[in-house]
């Protein structure tokens, strides 16, 4: 029983790590008071999802998704089982780009908020708004 459980834990350890990271990120986004901290949490959250996708692409016995021998090697039959699944990698390139784009906009907004209120703490800003 215990062994099976451990087996299950080990067989999917990447997934457990990704869930942990995602929870960390989500918690930071909801619970943190500092706007930049929230952005950090947001990035951790996004990275966790990328980890998840990359884990899908893992294939035991597979190598890097670059066809060996390159050009002029058409004679060689390529077997799918020999290479890692490239599709999640492709998707995650996109996701990384999206995350950096979001980061840029978020930071710009953070800077703009700071320019207006001279603080990045959400509760202080809200107090400032209420004063008005």
């Amino acid at each position, binding site marked *: 029983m215990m062994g099976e459980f451990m087996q299950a834990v080990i067989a*999917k350890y990447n997934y457990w790590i990704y869930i942990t990271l995602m929870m960390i990120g989500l918690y930071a986004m909801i619970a943190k008071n500092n706007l930049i901290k929230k952005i950090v949490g947001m990035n951790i959250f996004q990275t966790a999802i990328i980890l998840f996708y990359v884990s899908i692409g893992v*294939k035991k016995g597979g190598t890097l998704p*670059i066809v060996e021998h390159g050009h002029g090697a058409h004679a060689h039959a390529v077997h799918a089982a020999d290479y890692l699944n490239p599709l999640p990698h492709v998707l995650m390139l996109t996701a990384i780009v999206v995350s950096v784009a979001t980061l840029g906009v978020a930071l710009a907004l953070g800077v703009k908020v700071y320019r207006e209120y001279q603080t990045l703490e959400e509760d202080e800003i809200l107090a400032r708004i209420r004063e008005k």
Partner: protein
Amino acid sequence: MKVVGLIIALLAGSLLVYATADFPPLGDPNSPASVHVSPRYIEKTMEETDVPNIVTSVLADYRGYDTMFETTVIFCAGVACFLLLRVYRREEPQERLYRHVLTGVTIHVKAGKLPPSPDFERIDSAWTPHDLIIKTICRLLIPFIQLFALYVIAHGHHSPGGGFQGGVMLGASVIVLAMSQDLRTAVRRLREKADALMCATGVFIYAGTGALCLLLGSNFLDYSALAPVLHVDPIMARSHGIFMVEVGVGVAVMGVMIWIYNNVSSMGKYDEGL
């Protein structure tokens, strides 16, 4: 809020843990993800696109449409940062800092006046020590970074890398310049207008390649339509098409990275950076 956050995070986490039970084991070669769609990419990439790096071929050809929008996302971020932060009405600071290049003496000059002699260089208002080593090494490094970046773009067909990574590195080289010298130097090298035009051009190259295929009578982004123009067979045309869009991606990403950095680090004023 802390408790709420914890509860939500735990709820979401437990839902995901619950679902993980039905996943195929990590690295299972017979999992649906490994046997349904992806095998074709692996097995046919050479015959269909002549690109050994499967990630590149999928990225820029099979799912090239995604990548076009990925580049657009970056472009959006650049434009959004610019729109949000850029301020045109410049408030002249009360005084500027100038440093005598030879002696390292720093002087304050009132707004509107010029330093006493041309030997003075302007420095940012947050005083930084004069650091010859960093400046020189960065100057030395930047060409190599850029060269490597170009290699990454050009060699994306065969090795890890491609337009995106290369573009980021190109952008980073300029950012390094801006950090080691100052923002004004970097902006002098790459004017804001040129930078913005570069962003637009880069994505335009990508989408334009796609539109070119459309004009040549194929579906959007079907690079094989370029064959008659490039005088190659359709498979090579795909390979070339991938290269074209990779270049576009590189240009766009480089421009946007610099654009965002400039805007964020100077709060849109374009005078003082990090």
